[in-house]
């Protein structure tokens, strides 16, 4: 009983007439589901197809996965059919017989059984050589460009934060979720306060019964000239209210699906996302990330890279299986990216240094498997670095327009980008 009260009291604001009109029957379906009786079958609850509009697919979710540190794209989607690859990487090149072949030219790294499955099942798009003009080889600067979707522009807000502001001008609670110990720039928003948590079980205020009424009271938003205090009180209010829901969602979630490494890492974080999706929190944008620049493989990279690709692709495949189990696979697209690739020639330490263009991966039931855009050329390098063939914002534009149904990507990304046509 208490659970229902919590959910209905904050998860959705009381629906205004405008909200109800805007969201159509779908909101009613979700609302009914929250009350414990799903009165409206999901298929019926979806509004009719219409012109692209952010409200055409209110059930659709985007999950963004960050591989921090600069994943070595060349040893991920391996151009095993290219002699130049083995010339540039005499010791760390992956032998052709070990590669999980995609076509006569490219194949997956042997650790990537998970991606191979997804690809064969028709759920994995690989976008070649994503990057931007005048690449910066600093982790922080380059990651900042991907986070903001604005290279060299000094943008202060994240692309997902701006996207939330655009798609949801009414500013629903918990439209954006970031599974992390520290908030990512990608979700920094002008109007939305992202729900950021890492440990769902620990997301609560411990205190004796008599203290409980004082916690929300002491967290109330108040007028203050102290900007830091203003920031903290705004956050405190949301935290106090959202914690119980997240905790309940996690407690109610169990899965038989094998996500790979179990104790920590991407698999665990994606299970938290699955738990929230199962609980029908109104989140449309999720952000999940590796911590600590783990993909920064300067030295003796092959063993480490093998493990990282194993964990990553196991987890993503498991997540898709789990979404299928939950009946939500059709509603979710996942984008996997890193801040830059690595230089093509290996370095003296059997590793690779910071580079430029790198593939982006999009996964989803409605994704059309295959390669997108133009492959990079290993024989036409810019001082050891790949030349990008795809502005990474084309992928953003594709997700915003083709997946989430918002047409005016120029307003969000400042330029017009041709979308890639990757969804069914």
């Amino acid at each position, binding site marked *: 009983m208490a659970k229902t009260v919590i959910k209905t009291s904050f998860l959705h604001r009381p629906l205004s007439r405008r909200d109800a009109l805007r969201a159509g029957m779908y909101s009613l379906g979700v609302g009914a589901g929250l009350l414990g009786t799903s009165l409206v079958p999901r298929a019926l609850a979806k509004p009719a197809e219409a012109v692209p509009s952010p409200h055409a697919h209110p059930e659709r979710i985007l999950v963004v996965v960050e591989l921090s540190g600069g994943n070595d794209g060349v040893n991920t989607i391996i151009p095993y059919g290219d002699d130049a690859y083995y010339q540039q990487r005499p010791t760390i090149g992956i032998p052709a017989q070990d590669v999980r072949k995609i076509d006569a030219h490219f194949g997956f790294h042997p650790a990537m059984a998970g991606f191979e499955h997804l690809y064969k099942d028709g759920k994995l798009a690989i976008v070649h050589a994503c990057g931007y003009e005048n690449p910066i080889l600093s982790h922080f600067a380059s990651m900042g460009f991907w986070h903001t979707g604005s290279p060299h522009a000094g943008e202060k807000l994240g692309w997902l934060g701006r996207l939330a502001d655009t798609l949801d001008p009414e500013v629903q609670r918990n439209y954006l979720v970031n599974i992390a*110990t520290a908030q990512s720039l990608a979700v920094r928003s002008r109007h939305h306060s992202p729900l*950021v948590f890492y440990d769902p079980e620990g997301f609560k205020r411990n*205190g004796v019964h008599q203290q409980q009424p004082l916690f929300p009271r*002491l967290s109330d938003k*108040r007028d203050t000239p102290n900007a830091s205090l203003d920031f903290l009180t705004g*956050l*405190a209010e949301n935290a106090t209210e959202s914690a119980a829901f997240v905790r309940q969602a996690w407690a109610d979630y169990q899965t038989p699906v094998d996500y790979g490494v179990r104790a920590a890492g991407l698999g665990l974080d994606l299970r938290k996302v699955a738990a929230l999706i199962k609980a029908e929190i109104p989140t449309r944008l999720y952000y999940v990330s590796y911590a600590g620049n783990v993909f920064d493989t300067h*030295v003796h990279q092959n063993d480490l890279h093998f493990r990282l690709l194993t964990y990553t692709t196991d987890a993503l495949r498991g997540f898709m299986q789990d979404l299928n189990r939950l009946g939500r696979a059709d509603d979710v697209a996942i984008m996997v990216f890193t801040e830059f690739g690595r230089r093509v020639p290996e370095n003296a330490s059997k590793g690779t240094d910071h580079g430029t263009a790198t593939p982006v991966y999009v996964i989803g039931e409605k994704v059309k498997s295959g390669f997108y855009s133009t492959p990079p050329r290993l024989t036409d390098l810019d001082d050891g670095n790949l030349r990008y063939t795809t502005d990474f914002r084309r992928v953003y534009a594709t997700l915003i327009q083709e997946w989430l149904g918002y047409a005016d990507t120029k307003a969000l990304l400042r330029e017009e980008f041709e979308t890639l046509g990757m969804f069914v």
Partner: protein
Amino acid sequence: MQWIWNPRPRRLVSRVGTGTGIFLVLLLTFLFAEEARSQQQNRRAGPHSWTGDLTPITAQDWSPDRAAHLLERAGFGGPPQEVDHLAAMTPAAAVRHLIHYQDRDNSHVPPFDESGVFDPTLDPFPKSRADAVRIARLNGESMGVKVKPGGSRPLQPVVDRFFYWLRADALEMRRAGQWWAQRMLVTKRPLQEKLALFWHGHFATSDTKVRDYRKLLKQLELFWQQGNGNFRDLLIGVAQDPAMLVYLDAGENIKGHPNENFGREILELFTLGVGHYTETDIREAARAFTGWTHVGLAFVVKPELHDEGQKTFLGHTGHYDGIDIIDIILEQDVAARFIAAKLYRYFVRQNPAPGLVAQLGAILREHRYEIAPLLTTIFLSRDFYSPPAYGTQIKSPVHLVVSTYRKLGLTAIPGVPDFNTTTRDLGQELFHPPNVAGWEGGRSWITPALLLERGNFARTIFFPDMVNFRPPDRWMPVTNQKVATKIAQGYEITAATIETDDNAMSGNAMDPSGSESMSMFNMMAGADEDYNTRYGSTHGWQEAFRRVKPIPRFAAQLSMTSIVRQAELATTSEVVDYFLERLLRVPLAADDRQALIDFLTQELGTHRIKPAMSYLEEPVSHLVHLVMSTPEYQLG
């Protein structure tokens, strides 16, 4: 009747022998307290006109609250007597007292008590388990352990050895973190520790990669020695520091094959910032640092690996080595501004105006990169006490925990809650910065979940979670626990290490080909015949537990009752005001203050303290936990 007038009005105390004057005393107390409170408000932050003004404040501008602000920023705050001590000085003397700490005796702080787990065969340590195996196959041994000439799993002892040191070093590093926190707590030189923490974040180096607690402690020693000295000396020290050399792959930076990692970070993160150099400058700098490496804890230059050739760096050309590069860097105005601005953001506030940064940079250059004069200017400036600076800094997790203990008057870091786990869960673990850029600080310390977690930490000081607490230095992951149990029950290693009971493929684990839904990771576990990784990992935990000294697990020894008694607090409102004053740099709203008074009165069953003295402890602990759960308490 004796009046004791303390300048901090909430500790206005009357000692009344008889009851005759009580009414008068209460009235006077009330009037004085009200007046003093409003006066005190004025002595917190200065006027807005002080913002950006580096003019030193005068003795007339000084107040206990401003002294507390100084101690909070230049140290980790402190109990009332420490604040009073600074407040009794002039501001110039207080700042001098904090900055020129070298001659202050600190010998009561004990040296690190090593477990004695290191031996020379562990340095250099293989970069990975696979690397250890490769070395062993090549040389017949690794880390002082030989490959078995025959029998089963010939490489198992090597793998066991690898995991042993991985765990033992991590546990010893935890002990070192606890020890450093203890120094922060009891030091007579708080700024020395605060600066060491700053440089630890600036020259971020993590034991996750270094895997040698001795090197991290040696680096900390450098920060203690040079923290308020000359930045050039410090920078050279860091460039030659074994922990940094390992962390940024200096061993791989050799003539003909420069590794750019250090060259990039010294420019981007340590001195100039993005936009003030080119990719070519990075490569040229990397060449100049070739051959700089270490043997054990000693810095060495290997001339045969150093690139003697000509380099062109930031517009200069010559046969440079690392020192030359550092000197060219420090000639740039932007370097002085970069360091000065970073110190300012750490000690004062985020987002200083460019004009102020230019002034601070000029001061640093004027003093040839001496850090103490810059800090003196900052701590004495009107700007430091201006509204955007005063009570606006979100405390880092380490600051939060250490200053909480200091403000409560503790003299030992408790073992429950565990210090390292607490700060790590809040986003900051000593000797483990998240990446080469260190901790971002400011608002990034807070997320919705972490804000609640900070309040929960406060609760565990008073009410340690004895139900769920497990000493993290004596706990291994569940997978390893199962392996250890099965090994002791006589299972063969393969049988003991296969996951059987909690995955989708249960019953199918011996047949990877048949388990369509099994992850790659679980297919591979224990697959190698020459050794078993999962067994090695478990063995490593056990051996590390056996050899690394445990962290003592006592809870905080606190008596809130004696604090109340010593301060001679008579009513619940006095108690609330006393703790608000003692704990907060930012005042609580009047209605929240009243809510706390009502809470305490309700819990005690009276607004008078004296009749409640015998059962005060728990209600006052609840009160202090509530105060520490406020957004205000997160600010220093």
